[in-house]
């Protein structure tokens, strides 16, 4: 079996299955290098686990809480290093002229705005449904009666229809 490599960390975290763990442990029995690596990984993880979490600055906490309060939109972001150098009127990019993407929320009250937008969508959909329904109903066929042709009467009328009614002229020709 080759050295454990990345499986050393998985072994420490208990992420190997039974078969992999048995093979890893049997390898550690006679591979000092891997055994030392596993010990180092285990020591590192224990040390990281013992560290305290970073403390949240008080001003950051207060500013986050203020974002949840209703208020006007945030002022436009100011570039920390405005580009002042130009060439022929066009700004020359510098190492600070390209600002990082603005990932901040667009407003301070994102929850209510989202709800308001959903309301607008709902009202729009409902209005469209009412309009289409009105057109559909108004465009329906006139209430037409369901009919079965009076076939016998029609047949009798057809049988007794004299096309171009009227008798033929008595135009006689000599009897052959």
């Amino acid at each position: 079996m080759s050295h454990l490599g990345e499986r050393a960390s998985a072994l420490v975290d208990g992420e190997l299955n039974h078969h992999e763990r048995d093979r890893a442990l049997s390898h550690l029995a006679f591979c000092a290098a891997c055994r030392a690596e596993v010990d180092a990984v285990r020591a590192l993880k224990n040390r990281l686990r013992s560290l305290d979490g970073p403390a949240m600055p008080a001003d950051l906490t207060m500013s986050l809480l203020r974002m949840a309060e209703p208020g006007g939109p945030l002022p436009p972001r100011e570039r920390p290093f405005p580009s002042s150098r130009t060439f022929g009127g066009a700004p020359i990019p510098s190492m600070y002229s390209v600002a990082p993407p603005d990932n901040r929320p667009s407003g301070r009250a994102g929850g209510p705005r989202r709800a308001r937008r959903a309301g607008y969508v709902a009202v729009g959909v409902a209005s469209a449904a009412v309009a289409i329904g009105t057109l559909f109903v108004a465009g329906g066929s006139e209430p037409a009666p369901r009919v079965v042709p009076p076939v016998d009467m029609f047949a009798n009328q057809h049988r007794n229809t004299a096309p171009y009614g009227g008798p033929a002229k008595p135009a006689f020709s000599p009897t052959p």
Partner: protein
Amino acid sequence: MTRLPTALLLAAVMLLGMAVGNPVHAAAPPDDAEGEDTGLSLLRRAAVAARTRGYTGTQYVTAWGRSGSFSLVLEVRNVPGQGLTVHAQPSGRVERVDPGTPAGNMAAPSEAMLEVLARNYRVVQAGGGRVCGRPARLVRVLRPDDTLAARYWLDESGGPVLRRELLDGGGRVVHAGAFVDLTLDPARGDASPSRAAPPTPSPAAGGLDLAEVPRLFVGGWRFPGVLPGRLELFTAHAASAGYLHLGYSDGLSVVSVFIQPGVLDEERLRGWHPQRRGGHTIWMRDSAGQETIWASGGHVYTVFADAPADMVDAVVAALPHEPAPGLWTRLGRGAHRLLSWVNPFG
């Protein structure tokens, strides 16, 4: 009309065919004058005789429709001044009919109809023969492409039509009617000018009955003036029952179109079966006549025809077959209506 078993029908047709004489052998070769309507005067004389001469006889009528052939036997009696009485078998129905109607086997077409016939076809004499023991003159009716559309065997002594056949575009006989026996009223004599009974008084020798057409168009009815197969509109009436009756003819065949406002109640159509034609559903039933029903655009169309099946199919295809309106059509119509409601100038 009752549908007869095929074997019995074939036997009856063969026997009747023998009784009336073999028309194929009776037909002489066409004469040299086929380029003119040399047979029209003979048809006219037979039409007058069918009204003005008394006669009694037995006819058989066979029609070949979409679903087979149908036959019936008619005992006819014509009394000048009283009309033609027809006793149909096996239905047993007795009725007095006009000899110029399909019920009268089109024995006496009007002068106007003969003119339409001459306008659409060539009517030529084609020799002679014998039918039910009587000497006959054969008249052939030809389409513009010289195919045979009809044959008439006319009584040579001035009587009515002895035998009449209609043929479709493929040359198949689709309707045949012939006397098996005929007794002319001896008291009436023949139809010579000096001895013939005067014709039935009439203000006109037939013609169009289209006086209502402008009013029908104003009322919103729309219908064609001509239909495939040279069928011309000759009558248009709005009945008090709320339907429109249109009549078309080419001088030989008769097609009636009835239009009702409404939607077709297909569940209550008894004895009719649906068929798909050109993407549309039409309803037909087994009968001698060509009978078709379908719905289109808020109207129900019913067509009855004494005509070849191919002609009827073309007629049905030419009449409206509007599908049910789709969503966008309905929405557009709704918008149009709403605008018309709120438009103060509309």
